[in-house]
């Protein structure tokens, strides 16, 4: 599969969503949690691209990184661009996200490794 570029998407650091994230993860503190931007990968365009690439295989989260050039601010808007690439051996999907301010300054690079396994069971749709 050739690399697939997605975005840029407008993403936000809304207080209410971050409060819900803190509640779900038990992460204490103030500001934007370090791993919160993974929630941006849940948007429908990215999920659809992942599902299309999986082709019935089960994506298992194998690794994750967040590399900050600058902290994110609460109640701010950013641009997220994603590069999605499939590796053959072992079967794996790599998502590289880059988050920038609206002025184009780099804030964060994040990488998700998804191992693609063929389950012996039929997955629910």
């Amino acid at each position, binding site marked *: 599969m050739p690399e697939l570029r997605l975005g840029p998407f407008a993403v936000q650091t809304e207080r209410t969503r971050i409060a819900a994230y803190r509640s779900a*993860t*038990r992460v204490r503190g103030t500001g934007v949690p370090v791993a919160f931007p993974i929630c941006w*990968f849940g*948007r429908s365009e990215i999920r659809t691209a992942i599902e299309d690439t999986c082709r019935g295989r089960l994506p298992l989260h194998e690794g*994750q990184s967040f590399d900050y050039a600058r902290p994110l601010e609460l109640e701010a808007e950013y641009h997220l661009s994603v590069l999605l690439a499939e590796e053959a051996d072992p079967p794996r999907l790599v998502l590289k996200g880059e988050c920038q301010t609206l002025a184009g300054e780099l804030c964060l690079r994040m990488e998700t490794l998804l191992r693609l396994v063929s389950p*012996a069971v039929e997955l629910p749709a």
Partner: protein
Amino acid sequence: MSQALPAIGTRLPQCAIAPFTGAELSAYAEISGDTNPLHLDMALAGKIGLAAPPVHGMLLLATFESALQEWRPDLRIERLSGRFTQPVLEEEAITLSGRVVRVREGEAPHILVRLMANGAAREPAVVGEAVLVPRGPD
């Protein structure tokens, strides 16, 4: 005022994390958008040989943030990464640990902390790293 950076070999206080419940996995799936049925469906987990649904790896990785920031609130997490090597199942207790493996003073001061999250299995469930830097003035 910032404290001195910790020495190589300094250990994080070991941190016990109460088990995540199925309701918490559902709440995390909803907020994160990671609705992989493996984390939510007991029957599916059973079909691949697990006694219960596994906790999202990202939920485990996220727990390091509180442990690191409560240990050294004067430092900011600049990088956090983890490899999810063993499943931790819902209702399984988790222990976080870590050790400073690199210290840099000078113009770009930082520390590198090697991290581990252990569930019931002997092998760690998450092997990770964090880079922490002194917080700038707010």
